[in-house]
């Protein structure tokens, strides 16, 4: 840049000191196993998360088999069923979605999109993954200890979580709590990296308000996670002490099996407060990265700037801040002062405002855009549908009076699966398809991708839409079998069979995804460095997939990430590192 004349527009602050030295691995083990490159760590995180997610998918199919065909399968008894429910929820929320969005996409996207060589602390980043991996192994091990895994439900409410009678109170719950504590330690190491990298390692010209929304979302979600996970850590430590040293943090005086236990004076509701103080921000820890990734995909494939960029940033911040003062809406049935109930219902409904701003902005981004219905775009649009659907039922459940009868029914199951399971997972698929050419250097099979989308999208509706009706009828969740109940109509058994068949179809159709990913890795055609015509820096790397250190020379950023279809320019996108002078040459000559 030295020979460029420094006019006001093109001026870039000079590099004051030399760049940081990159760590170069010398051994095979250091290069592929204990690797400190954020991109490799991202792939390690993603593979482990998706692997354990498949286990949880299998558990959900086992549950659906039992609900649809009670007393048919010998390998599912009430104990197993409760363990499946617990492990399915815990794995999906924490070990799959949190790890995949922050550990997977966070690690891959943050350095590349910000024009950095790597995370600020690559070694800590590597340790973070291995601690996560250990947490996963401990969780899996809990299936095989005497008494099996915990069956307390993913919320682990005491006193039942550690009292005899609940499955897995011998070793299962201990391993579960240890695994959670380890996960939090590992995540904190990663999270410190993500936040510090965003704050300190952006390339020159990349101001905060030029960051892609993906980075904004991952940044705020990481801050939420760093502040919310301690609540889970605190409750895990206290429950572990209750279980092992017979303290009475959460355990009231209880008569069990005819005898008085040693517990005295603990407060189970205290656990619920701590748990949901973590649990509600956790919803947004999963949702915010999905919001960010989907904004990116929609803008690129609609060839249009994201509508209301600044509003989108502030909506993310507002959602993050609000998510800390709504936790007690998970506890309406635990009983509370009506004024508290009113307060939490109000804050809950207020979250709808920034969320609605985001939804409107996504739809307005599509409005009169040059929409390309590629596979990632299909998933992104599918996300808008499922998210609106799940969000609207949230308005019902946020009200105390409506929540009380619907609590613990299939209506709740339908709500949170729509909004927190199907929606983020659609984004995960969309994002994997979108960045697959960059990550692997090869194109995926378009036809298989479309088949995968339609099976997953329509199938998810077939699973969760009918559940709303079951819930309105009063069918309780988590039950092993229903038998003859007056208020549950006989036809709901048929509906359950239909739901289970749909679930099996959706699960089976994921084979299209995995086949596509693995087959294209070897046989897919070579991908263009920027197949979608995107503006962000990860598409501007000299190699595809990006090499160690990401860039030859660190890019200089002159513009925001959303210069699509700028009037007067022939090319319908201007990458972030194109200076105004270079852009002049791209402008149309014919006026």
């Amino acid at each position: 840049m030295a020979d460029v004349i420094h006019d006001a527009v093109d001026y870039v602050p000079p590099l004051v000191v030399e760049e940081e030295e990159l760590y170069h691995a010398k051994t095979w083990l250091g290069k592929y196993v204990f690797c400190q490159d954020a991109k490799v760590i991202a792939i390690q995180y993603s593979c482990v998360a998706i692997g354990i997610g498949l286990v949880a998918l299998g558990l959900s199919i086992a549950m659906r088999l039992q609900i649809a065909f009670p007393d048919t399968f010998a390998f599912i008894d009430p104990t197993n069923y409760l363990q499946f429910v617990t492990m399915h929820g815990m794995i999906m929320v924490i070990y799959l979605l949190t790890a995949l969005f922050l550990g997977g996409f966070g690690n891959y996207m943050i350095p590349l999109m910000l024009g950095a060589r790597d995370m600020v602390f690559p070694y800590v980043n590597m340790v973070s993954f291995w601690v996560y991996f250990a947490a996963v192994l401990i969780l899996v091990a809990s299936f095989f200890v005497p008494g099996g895994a915990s069956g307390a439900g993913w919320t682990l409410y005491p006193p039942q979580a550690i009292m005899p009678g609940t499955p897995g109170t011998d070793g299962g719950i201990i391993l579960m709590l240890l695994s959670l504590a380890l996960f939090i330690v590992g995540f904190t190491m990663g999270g410190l990296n993500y936040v510090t990298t965003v704050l300190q390692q952006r390339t020159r010209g990349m101001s905060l308000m030029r960051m892609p929304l993906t980075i904004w979302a991952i940044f705020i979600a990481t801050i939420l996670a760093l502040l919310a996970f301690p609540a889970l850590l605190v409750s895990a430590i206290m429950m572990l002490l209750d279980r092992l040293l017979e303290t009475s943090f959460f355990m009231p005086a209880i008569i069990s099996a005819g005898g008085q236990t040693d517990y005295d004076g603990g407060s189970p509701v205290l656990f619920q407060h701590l748990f949901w103080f973590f649990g509600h921000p956790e919803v947004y820890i999963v949702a915010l990265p999905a919001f960010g990734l989907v904004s990116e995909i929609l803008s690129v494939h609609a060839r249009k700037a994201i509508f209301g960029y600044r509003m989108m940033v502030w909506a993310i911040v507002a959602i993050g801040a609000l998510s800390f003062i709504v936790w007690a809406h998970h506890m309406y049935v635990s009983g509370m002062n009506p004024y508290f109930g009113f307060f939490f219902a109000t804050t809950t409904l207020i979250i709808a405002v920034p969320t609605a701003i985001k939804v409107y902005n996504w739809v307005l981004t599509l409005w009169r855009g040059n929409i390309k219905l590629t596979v990632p775009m299909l998933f992104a649009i599918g996300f808008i549908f499922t998210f609106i659907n799940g969000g609207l039922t949230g308005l019902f459940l946020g009200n105390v009076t409506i929540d009380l009868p619907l609590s613990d029914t299939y209506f709740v199951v339908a709500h949170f699966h729509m909004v927190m399971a199907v929606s983020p997972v659609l984004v995960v698929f969309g994002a994997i398809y979108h960045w697959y050419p960059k990550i692997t250097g090869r194109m995926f099979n378009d036809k298989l991708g479309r088949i995968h989308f339609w099976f997953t999208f329509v199938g998810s509706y077939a699973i969760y839409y009918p559940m709303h009706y079951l819930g309105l009828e009063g069918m309780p969740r988590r039950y092993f079998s229903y038998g003859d109940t007056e208020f549950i109509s006989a036809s709901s058994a048929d509906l359950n069979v239909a739901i289970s068949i749909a679930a099996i179809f959706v699960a089976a159709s994921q084979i299209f995804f995995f086949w596509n990913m693995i087959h294209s890795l070897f046989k897919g055609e070579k991908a263009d460095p920027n197949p979608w015509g995107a503006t962000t820096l990860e598409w501007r790397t000299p190699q595809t997939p990006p090499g160690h250190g990401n860039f030859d020379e660190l890019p200089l950023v002159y513009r925001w990430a959303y210069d699509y279809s700028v009037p007067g320019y022939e090319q319908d996108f201007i990458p972030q590192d194109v200076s105004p002078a270079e852009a002049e040459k791209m402008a149309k000559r014919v006026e």
Partner: protein
Amino acid sequence: MQWTLLFLALLMGVVVWWLIRQTVNVKPWVAGANVDSVESEGIRSVVDMGGALRPSKVALGVFLAVVTSVFALFISAYSIRMEVGDWRPLPEPMLLWANTGILILCSVFLYGAWMAVKRNNVQGAKLGMTLGAVMTLVFMVGQLLAWDQLITSGYVISGNPANAFFYTLTALHAAHLIGGLIVLIIALQRLWNAEEFAPKVASSIELCGVYWHFLLAIWIILFSFLLNT
């Protein structure tokens, strides 16, 4: 939960104030270079960094926010539980006052070590760090003795929630000190045979000081809560 919420509200206030300063009146869609953004990455000499923040200092700040969150949650749980009728507070051994004094000394020694770094006095830094590490160990032995006194007078962990909170909070505080001690000892070992300060070591010394001051503040807050029962 009021303590946690208070802490979070303060933190959110800071974050939002900072974001407003960074983002309001910015027109992201206008192309051109932005002078305000991060100038470079790389290592400058630790002492003459001036106002610029090092990544490790930012990371420590974020980590301290996380640790504060942990303790704020414990204190919230503690104060919620305290209001229930069957709370039987345990007597605080006088030893805890002595321990508090020792922890203050640790902070002073580490502050002295950082001052020595600023004056480029390697021997002084070694002395300050060694004394700081030794005093930290003395503090932890003192805490163990306090535990021992309580246990021999019959206040065991499973006796009453007040006891359980006391042991858990002191153990958690000590665990954080042990983590800091590991970093401190690594830095001390690197400094031991060196003639001058490597940038990383100098940085470690400063950050250790900050961390110890923070843990001292946490201990004083915890101690005042324990005294107030």
